[in-house]
């Protein structure tokens, strides 16, 4: 089986923007054109025949084979229709990783997109507050879930310890919090921020 009603509908509506449809292990998957993705997701959410109103998850997959694209994966669910759909977009792992944010459709995308950005370096255009979430803001080793990232990190243990101990107070606050507290910050911290420095060792 390679079709479900939702897959047929999305292909009939968007034609060539749907690159591929599959049913794997019983899960319906549609791979869509990156630039059309936001329009397709909006349609899936709002169209009365689809009503995928619940965003279960956003994640990304990078394969061990460097020839394969890096996938951004949206797990959608329609609560009224009790149907699931997985929408994927393909990105070139060597190229710029950029997709449109779905923050405007589902507020649940807020932290999920931040996590994908943190772990894979995918930029979500239009996300209001795209910064690292699990790693700290000044983390300089890259994006941990990329296949090129070694299990123990890029830096040596000694370097990691040095960076951790050398961190400045302000690295524990986000830039918007620091902006708020500007007039109560000590003068040396204020001076560092004015020079454009933020956080620990770079």
């Amino acid at each position: 089986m390679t079709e479900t009603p939702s897959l047929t509908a999305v292909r009939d509506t968007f034609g060539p923007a749907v690159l591929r449809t599959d049913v794997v292990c019983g899960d319906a998957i549609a791979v869509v054109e990156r630039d059309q993705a936001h329009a397709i997701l909006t349609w899936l959410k709002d169209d009365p025949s689809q009503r995928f109103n619940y965003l279960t998850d956003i994640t990304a997959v990078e394969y061990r084979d460097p020839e394969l694209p890096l996938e951004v994966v949206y797990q959608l669910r329609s609560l009224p229709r009790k149907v699931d759909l997985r929408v994927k977009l393909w990105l070139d792992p060597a190229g710029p990783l950029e997709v449109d944010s779905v923050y405007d459709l589902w507020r649940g995308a807020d932290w999920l997109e931040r996590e994908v950005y943190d772990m894979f370096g995918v930029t979500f255009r239009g996300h209001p507050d795209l910064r690292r979430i699990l790693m700290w803001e000044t983390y300089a080793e890259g994006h941990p879930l990329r296949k090129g990232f070694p299990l123990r990190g890029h830096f040596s243990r000694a370097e990691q310890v040095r960076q951790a101990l050398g961190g400045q107070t302000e690295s524990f606050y986000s830039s918007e919090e620091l902006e708020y507290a500007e007039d109560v910050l000590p003068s040396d911290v204020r001076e560092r921020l004015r020079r454009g420095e933020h956080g620990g060792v770079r």
Partner: protein
Amino acid sequence: MSTRTVELELATSGVDARGRATRVPLGVGELREDVLSGDGLMVNIGPQHPATHGVLRLVVELEGETVKRLIPHVGYLHSGFEKLGEYRHYNQIIPLTDRTDYLAPMANNVCLALAVEKLMGIEITERCRVLRVIACEMSRIISHLVWLGTTGIDLGAFTPFLWSFQERERIYNLQEAWTGARLTTSMTRVGGLMADIPDGWTDALRGFIRSFPATLDEIDTMFTRNAIWIGRTQGVGVISGEDAVNYSLSGPMLRASGVDYDVRKDRPYLGYETYDFDVPIGEHGDNYDRYRVRMEEMRQSTRILEQALDRLAPGPINVDDPRVILPPKSRAMSDMEAMIFHFKQVMEGVKPPKGEAYLGIENPKGELGYYFVSDGTAKPVRWRIRPPAFINLAALPKLCEGVLLSDVIAINASVDIVMGEVDR
């Protein structure tokens, strides 16, 4: 500059000669208004704070005592489980799942096994299915008991904490008898279970089911009509059903807002559609409804446990499939074929075919989903945890809009987070 007269009072009132409480004015002075309502104040709560339930850090911007903005910071307990999983065989990932939501380790084990079985197209045995249901529902009860106890402490009630932890201890003893561990249970394997339950175990569980509702009723008496409890929870942290869906909330958080979504009913696994149980739904979406929903879920879990024990029939716990299950030791030592399977299992691990599968289960915190992508080797290309606590916590700034600082503690408690899972 406007001024006003303030009267300062003793926090603990004194008692006069007749035993009546007196209020002793400490002094009368003039206080400048701008001291009380300045531009605001930035308060940092955590990451080491008992009311944040782990290493959660909240930066709160206050206007007087009202929250203007709240920014949560997570990641202090980030362990890179998803990355570690890419370097391990599927069965070797099971110990990692214990450590994500460590308040319901058995349910996580079950989710992992189910996801890999979905990937491989394996049908597990009937006894295994029933035992996994028992594991999931026991997990739901202990997780909710921890939530109940700690939330009680956050809101100033100490006694129910002791009662609920006493009951939780009894389930921990059962877990220990079954798996050898109280917390790091690792009780499932792909295609079956690590071990069958020991002799007399079902009687012990029946004993628990008989007496547990009485404790639940006692806690109910302490809380449900308690003026302080109601004052701290009703109308606090309200989120509408529409918003709850938009914020991707799940579990009791979603159902307290009146949205009828329970994975056990809507996308049944382990034969949950054959059990007779109700899914409690709230209507106001506030802390109180979340409390009521969780209380009722514990009662429903005991119902499911009872039915599961009734249908628990003797039989094998593991599938008869040498791709995933080790042959019995005696056969491995005497039979050439079994020896080869044993060797391949231990050295190479379980090898699902190329493909991917997402499987969600109804964990105590919400919908826990494991998403596996396999390229045909023994180690997954990607193991994604859909963390219910992380996604529920993301709604905290929304829940805390314009509330009092003290309510932030109550609301944060009502979300029921566990940082091991939030940070993974």
